C-alpha cells in the first residue's frame, strides 16, 4: 500500500512539473521569447555567475581556514615530510592565488561584458606580447616548482645512509608481515617457493643471515634514526602508505622496492600531540588489492632509540620459535643455525653446562 502511494505521489509530482513546464512554454510563446535576440534571462544568468563566484570563494576560504573546525591535515612525523609539506604549501599558495584570480576574471568578465543592446564586442583577435607574457610567466613559475621538487625528490629517493635500520615489509592479501635482521642486522634471503602456512615470508634457511631474523607482530621503529624499508609483495600489488610519515611505495610481486625515512616522533609523543591517548601509527595499503583492501592494516610503534634497542635485543629469532624449520637448514650449517638463532643458548641455560661450539 505504501509503495503504491509513493508511486502515485511520484507520478503526480512529475505530472505537476510537466504541466508547469507546458504552461511556462506557452506563456513564453505568447510573450514572444523566441523572437528576442538574446535569452530573456541573460542578465539573471550573468548575475548568478557572479553570485556563485562570491559564495564559492567565501566557502573555499571559510572551510580551508578552519571555519567548520575540521582538521584536514595529518600531523607530521618524519624528516623528509617537512620538505614535502613545505613544497605542498608553496604549491598551494601559488595555485591558490592563480585559482582565485582566474576565477574572478572568468566570472567577473561574464558579468561585466554581458550582452547589452547596442553594444558591440571589441574585435581583438590576438596580442602577441600578451601571449608571450602568459606563456613565459607560468613557465618560470613552473621551473621554480620543478627545481625545488626535483631536489627534494632526489634527496628522498637517494640511497639510504649506511647505518639505516633495515626492515623488510611484505604485503599479502590482506595484511603485512615485517622482518628484522636480528643480531647480525642482516636480512636473510627469501624464496617465494619456500612460503607455507607457518613460514609466511618464505625465509630461505640456506642463507646464514636468515638464522637470527625475527618477525614481530607490529612494525617497531626507532625515533630519529634512518629506517630503510625493503618492500615486497607476495600475491598482488599493494602499497606501503603511512600518512603521518608522508611515506608511500608500492609493494610489487617479483620486484623488491625500498623507501627510507627518519621518524621524528614516538607513538607516545604523538599521543600527547594529538590529545588522543589511543593514537597509533597505522600502515595502510594504498593500491587496490581485492576484497579486503580497505582493511589491510598493520600497527606501527615508534620508540625512543634506547627503548628500541632494548626491544630489539629481547626478540627471539623466528627459527628459534619454529625449530621444525631447522630441517630446512643445510646439514653443515645446522650447528651455526642453532647458535645464531639462540636455540643453543637456551639449551646451555637449561642444561647448565658450557658448550664450546665446534663450528666456529
Amino acid at each position, binding site marked *: 500500500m505504501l509503495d503504491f502511494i509513493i508511486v502515485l505521489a511520484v507520478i503526480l509530482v512529475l505530472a505537476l512539473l510537466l504541466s508547469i513546464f507546458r504552461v511556462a512554454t506557452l506563456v513564453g510563446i505568447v510573450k514572444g521569447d523566441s523572437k528576442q535576440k538574446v*535569452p530573456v534571462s541573460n542578465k539573471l544568468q550573468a548575475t548568478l555567475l557572479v553570485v556563485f563566484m562570491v559564495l564559492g570563494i567565501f566557502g573555499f576560504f571559510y572551510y580551508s581556514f578552519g571555519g567548520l573546525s575540521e582538521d584536514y591535515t595529518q600531523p607530521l612525523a618524519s624528516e623528509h615530510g617537512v620538505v614535502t609539506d613545505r613544497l605542498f604549501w608553496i604549491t598551494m599558495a601559488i595555485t591558490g592565488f592563480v585559482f582565485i584570480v582566474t576565477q574572478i576574471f572568468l566570472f567577473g*568578465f561574464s558579468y561585466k561584458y554581458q550582452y547589452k543592446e547596442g553594444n558591440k564586442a571589441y574585435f581583438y583577435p590576438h596580442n602577441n606580447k600578451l601571449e608571450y607574457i602568459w606563456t613565459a610567466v607560468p613557465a618560470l613559475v613552473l621551473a621554480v616548482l620543478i627545481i625545488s621538487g626535483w631536489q627534494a625528490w632526489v634527496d628522498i629517493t637517494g640511497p639510504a645512509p649506511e647505518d639505516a635500520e633495515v626492515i623488510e615489509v611484505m604485503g599479502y592479501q590482506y595484511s603485512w608481515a615485517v622482518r628484522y635482521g636480528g643480531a647480525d642486522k642482516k636480512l636473510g634471503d627469501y624464496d617465494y617457493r619456500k612460503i607455507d602456512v607457518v613460514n609466511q615470508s618464505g625465509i630461505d634457511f640456506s642463507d646464514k643471515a636468515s638464522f637470527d631474523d625475527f618477525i614481530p607482530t607490529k612494525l617497531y621503529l626507532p625515533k630519529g634514526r634512518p629506517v630503510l624499508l625493503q618492500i615486497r609483495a*607476495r600475491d598482488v600489488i599493494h602499497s606501503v602508505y603511512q600518512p603521518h610519515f608522508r611515506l608511500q611505495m608500492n609493494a610489487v610481486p617479483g*620486484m623488491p622496492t625500498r623507501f627510507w625515512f627518519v621518524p621524528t616522533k614516538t607513538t607516545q609523543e604523538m599521543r600527547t600531540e594529538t590529545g588522543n591517548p589511543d593514537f597509533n601509527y597505522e600502515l595502510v595499503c594504498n593500491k587496490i588489492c581485492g576484497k579486503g583492501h*580497505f582493511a589491510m592494516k598493520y600497527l606501527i610503534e615508534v620508540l625512543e632509540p634506547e627503548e628500541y634497542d632494548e626491544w630489539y635485543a629481547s626478540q627471539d629469532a623466528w627459527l628459534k620459535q619454529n625449530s621444525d624449520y631447522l630441517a630446512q637448514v643445510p646439514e653443515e650449517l645446522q650447528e651455526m643455525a642453532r647458535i645464531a638463532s639462540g636455540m643453543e643458548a637456551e639449551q646451555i641455560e637449561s642444561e647448565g653446562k658450557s658448550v664450546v661450539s665446534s663450528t666456529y
Partner: protein
Amino acid sequence: MSVADIQVEEHLAHDDHGDHHEQSFISKYIFSTDHKTIAKQFLITGIIWAIIGGALSVIFRLQLGFPEMQLEWLRPILGKWITEGGKLDSEFYLALVTMHGTIMVFFVLTAGLSGTFSNFLIPLQIGARDMASGFMNMLSYWFFFLSSVIMFVSLFLETGPAGGGWTVYPPLSALPQAIAGSGAGMTLWLVSMVFFIASTLLGGINYITTVINMRTEGLSFSRLPLTIWAFFITAVIGLLSFPVLVAAALLLVFDRSFGTSFYLSEIYINGEALPNVGGSPILYQHLFWFLGHPEVYIVILPALGITSEIISTNSRKPIFGYRAMIGSILAIAFLSFIVWAHHMFVTGLNPFLGSIFMFLTLIIAVPSAVKAFNYITTMWKGNIVFTPAMLFSIGLVSFFISGGLTGLFLGNSAVDITLHDTYFVVAHFHLVMGSASFFGLLAGVYHWFPKMFGRMMDERLGYIHFWSTFVGVYLVFFPLHYIGIAGFPRRYYSFTSFDAFSSFADLNSFVSLAAILTFGAQFIFLFNFFFSIYKGRKAPKNPWNSNTLEWTTPELPGHGNWPGAIPKVYRWPYDYSKPGSESDFIPQHIPYSQTPESNLPHEAELAKKEEISQVNESK
C-alpha cells in the same frame, strides 16, 4: 575533388531526374552510413552509458556517505551483491568503481564525445558531403555497439564484472584467485576493450582522412575552426596510443589464459606458489599509461575545441590567439605522449626516470594555461549571450582551471609521494577530465542540437540543468581535495578500519547527497533532450548567428548536407563584431569582396584577387 564528393553529386543528380528512392528504415537509421545519423547513434549510446555509469557511482556513494544505511531495497537490482546484513558487498564495491571508471572514460567521454561531435561536425564544418568512408564509419559505430553489449553483459555475470580498478593492473587482474572480478568479468572486459579500440581506430582514421582530404575550396588549415583542429589532433593521438593498449591487453590475455609470464613473477597465492617467474607488473603499467595518459587528452581536447567555438560565438568576439590555441593543442598532443610515467612515481620506478617525467609533466601545464588565459581574454570586452551552451562552456573553463591547478601538486613527484592514490587524485581528475569533458559534451549538445534535430531545446530547462549540475559538481568534487589532503585512500569500501581516517563522516555524507542530487538533475536534461527531439520549437537555420559552415545548411540537413553546391570558404571562422561591419558576424562563406567596409588591409588585397577570379570564372 575527392571520390566521395563525386559520388554524392552523381547521386544528387540522380535524384533530380525524379527517380527518388526512399531508404529503408534499416539503412536509414540502423546500418546508416550517414555521418549525422552515426553521430546521433554515438550520442544516444553515450547517453545511455552515462546514465549507467552515473547510477553505479550513486550506489557506491551511498556506501561511502552512509556506511550504516540498509541497502536491502537494492536487492531486486543487485541480488546477491547485497549481503545478508543488507550491506553492499565489499568486492562488488570494487567492481562498481571499476565499471564506473571504464564506462565514463571510454564509453561516455571517448566514444560519446569524439564519436558524436567528430562525426557530426567534421563534414559539416569543413564542407564535405560525408566522411571519407561512410562504411568504415558505420563499422566504427557497430564495433562500439558490440563492445558496449559485451561490457554490459559483464555486469550480470555470477562472478561480477572486472573489479581491479579501471586501470586493471596485473597481477590482480590476471589472477581469478585474487578477486572474483578477474574471472569471466575480466575476460569480457578485455574482449570488449579490443572491439572498442577497433571502433576508435576506424573512426579516427576516417576523421583524419576526411579533415586532410575533403576540406572545401578555400578552407586551408589556417582557416579551420578550432573544433576541427581539436578533433583532428585527438584522432591522431588516439591512432598512436590506442594500439599500445591492445598490446597491453593481449599480453594480459596470454598471462591469464596461456600461462605466459609477461606481468607475473614470484607469486604465492591461496596456498600455492605459481610457476611464473621473470615477468614485471610494471611493464603493464608502462604500456597501459602510454595509452592512459594520452587518453586524458583524447577526452579533454574535443571538449576544449567545442568550448572555443561556443565561447567565441556567444561572446560575439573572435577567439583570442587563434594560432596560439592551435599551437597549444599541438604542444599538448606532443607532450601527452611523454608524460605517462607520472602515474607511476611510487611504483618503484627508477627515481631518475621519475625526475624526467616530473619535468615533462609540469611543462604540459604551460600550453594548458595558455588555453585558459585565451578563453578568459576572449570574453573580455565581449557582448556575451548566455545560452545554456555558453554557460556549460564557462563551467568547463572553471573546472579546467580548478582541476588543472591541482595537477601541479600531483605532477611534482616529491609531493605526489603523499598524495598518490588518495582522494586528492580523485578530485583532480574528476574536475579537469571528468567534469570538464562532460560539460564540453553537454555544451556541444545544447549548441548543435538545432542542427542535429532541426528543433531547439528548451532554454529554461537548460538553465535549471546547468545550475544544478554546475553547483552540484563543485559540491561533489571540491570537498574531496580536503579528504585527499588528509590522506584518505581511494577505492576504499569503508574507512572504519583506520583511526587515521575516522574523520570526515559528515563531509562524505554531504558529498554523497550532492552526488545524488546532481545525478538526479541530469534527468531534467534527458527530458529536455528527448522531448525537444519531437516537440521542440522549430529551429532557424542559424540560431546562434554563428560563422562556421554547418549553419549554411538547411534547418535539418539531409543526406549530402547541402542541397546545392558546397559553399566555398573565404575567411577564418571568427569574424565576429568586425569593425566597420553592420552585422556582428560574417560567416566563412562570405567573400571579402562583399564586405569592403570591414576588410583589414591584407584582406582588401585578397578581395581584389577574389574579384579577378570571379571574373575569370564567369568568362
